[in-house]
């Protein structure tokens, strides 16, 4: 796939290079004699102050892509077999490991789903927050602790001064996720990757945490990559969306457009298969079949065995991610679809 030509416009709003750009990324996992093709040519970009939601089910490659960006892929067995990742104009995959380590935490940071297992249970949260400053900025223990309290205030943990010496298990799930956010924000990075940051939280707490994250992002003008399977969360916070399936991006679109007029049968199927809160629906539309097996991705379009519209070409030719045009033939900004029949899907 000659993805460079077909990728959506990569330039930022003012024509400069985007904050982060992933080009034709391929990642494989080799376990004994089987190869799992987790990422098979992903292209996406994020600008400063922008939120990109990467939407996909388990096995779609959304988290693996993020790990490749952060440089925390388990390798072996994971291996980047092809592609480039540009961060602030620099191809970070070609950097030596010690250079990449300096990027992590300082200029790009990650928030994980499970805050409890991401925090060290035997160290106080204040110490763990302060460690960022001691490791990257060489602050003293006392200065670091003051910074930790400031951060905890910032993510609105009540009574930060009293709680700075508490251990992770003494905080509730929502508070722990705030601590994770504080840790990610500590060095004011330019890019934050949040991998299912609210999936483990209750609905009312989820809303608090998502709001906090969005607010801090605006304040610091950071780029945010939000990885999620939840179409509701995406609609609430994203600017643009990349939908992944079997290690590829099948559709990209600005958030409003995607929900109004999806241009890929998978996206459409997902939207139709979730029940609504504000009305009692009829029988749900169900995408047939199973999520793909990454060791045996079907030939042609990976979605073809589950697609109601699949025709012969879908079983043989891998569809490229091509720009989506309106009725009058003009390109719809930010929109692309990897479906041979995107026109029918968009208009049908």
């Amino acid at each position: 796939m000659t993805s460079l030509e077909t990728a959506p416009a990569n330039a930022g709003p003012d024509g400069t290079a985007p904050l982060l750009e992933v080009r034709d990324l391929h990642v494989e996992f080799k376990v004994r004699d089987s190869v799992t093709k987790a990422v098979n040519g992903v292209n996406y970009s994020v600008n400063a102050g922008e939120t990109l939601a990467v939407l996909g089910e388990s096995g779609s490659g959304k988290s693996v892509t993020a790990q490749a960006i952060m440089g925390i892929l388990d390798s072996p067995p994971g291996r980047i077999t092809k592609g480039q990742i540009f961060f602030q104009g620099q191809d970070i995959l070609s950097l030596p490991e010690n250079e990449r380590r300096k990027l992590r935490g300082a200029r790009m940071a990650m928030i994980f789903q499970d805050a409890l297992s991401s925090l060290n249970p035997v160290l106080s949260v204040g110490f763990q927050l302060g460690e960022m400053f001691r490791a990257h900025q060489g602050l003293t223990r006392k200065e670091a602790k003051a910074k930790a309290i400031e951060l905890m205030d910032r993510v609105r943990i009540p009574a930060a001064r009293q709680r700075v010496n508490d251990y992770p298990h003494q905080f509730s799930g929502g508070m722990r996720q705030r601590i994770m956010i504080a840790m990610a924000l500590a060095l004011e990075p330019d890019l934050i990757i949040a991998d299912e940051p609210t999936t483990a939280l209750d609905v009312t707490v989820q809303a608090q945490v998502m709001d906090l994250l969005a607010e801090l992002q605006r304040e610091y003008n950071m780029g945010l990559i939000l990885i999620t399977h939840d179409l509701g969360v995406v609609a609430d916070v994203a600017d643009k969306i990349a939908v992944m399936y079997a290690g590829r991006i099948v559709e990209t679109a600005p958030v409003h457009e995607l929900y109004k007029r999806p241009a890929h049968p998978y996206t459409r199927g997902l939207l139709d298969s979730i029940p609504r809160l504000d009305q009692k629906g009829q029988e749900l539309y169900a995408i047939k079949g199973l999520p793909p097996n990454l060791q045996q991705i079907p030939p042609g379009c990976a979605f073809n065995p589950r697609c109601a519209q699949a025709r012969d070409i879908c079983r043989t030719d891998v569809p490229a991610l091509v720009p989506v045009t309106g009725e009058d033939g003009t390109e719809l900004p930010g929109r692309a679809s990897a479906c041979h029949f995107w026109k029918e899907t968009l208009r049908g």
Partner: protein
Amino acid sequence: MAELSKDSGHTDAMPNVSEVEVVDASSETEAVAAVEAPVQRGEPILQVRDLVKHFPLTRGILFKRQIGAVRAVDGVSFDLHQGETLGIVGESGCGKSTVAKLLMNLERPTAGQIFYKGQDITRLSGRALKAVRRNIQMVFQDPYTSLNPRMTVGDIIGEPFDIHPEAAPKGDRRKRVQELLDVVGLNPEYINRYPHQFSGGQRQRIGIARGLALNPEIIICDEPVSALDVSVQAQVINLMERLQDEFNLSYIFIAHDLSIVRHISDRVGVMYLGRIAEIGTDEQIYEHPTHPYTQALLSAVPVPDPEAREHRERIILTGDVPSPANPPSGCRFRTRCWKAQDKCAQEVPLLAVPERFKGTDSPAAHESACHFAEEKDVVHAA
């Protein structure tokens, strides 16, 4: 209802409950397809009264002493009618999963009764309990731990027949298992496979087939789709709805996903810290909630509609759910409630139709445990 009158603490509330049931049923007739309506009127198949479960907190290794209790379920009452789906929603720690375990007799209640067709099943044991179990079955949340990894699918689905040999003659069992596989949409030839050879959605179907084996009347579903991928959730939900029609099943559907609960339920109960905050038909709860907690919960659900985000009212609650080991006095929601007043700390609000809506045919006239209940639509754009 003879047994109920013995229960002194709740005699006042009881008539209200049955009155409301009648009101519910009639309003339902208009809302739901007419076919389902007659079913609603019958005697409830399951009646839960003042169910309480406290888990003791102990200290010490050799000589344990109780230092408190987690009040996981603290006075829960509801009815389930034949052929109906009652949804129970709430956040983690609200006690909804404990209710499921109590209904299944996997835990013994600290107090309260569960009447199955008029018989209190919490006091049963041995043969009598085993007989009741044939009629109440369960579908579990985690498709990975709910199937014994060392048994074949045939052994798993056939186990109910081993335990209840009278349910199917020995020679028929293999055929019955294959029929059940077919009913839940799996290839009957999979009978000799092991659970690890299946995906999560397929495993959940196996769990459903096991639950159906004894032809139960009631199935308790504890978060049956929350571990599944979005595209697979719809398949399983549709399957469960089809089976309900086919076998006239009654479901108790416990979940934290409010959209899915609305989709599948006829009536919905909202739980908070071991109690039911509000209960009513899906329309009453979702379109006309009167309890502040229900309103906050509904308003916090992210809706897959970016247009709605600018227009929907969002009630962002402060703080976390208090510990069930040490719940607030009075109304349990008062520590996070924007309406809370002194009365809320002193008086426990009863689950009843609020005074101001009593006798009206307003959809707000459903049971709500709030001193200051008032209607507020939060799911539609303003």
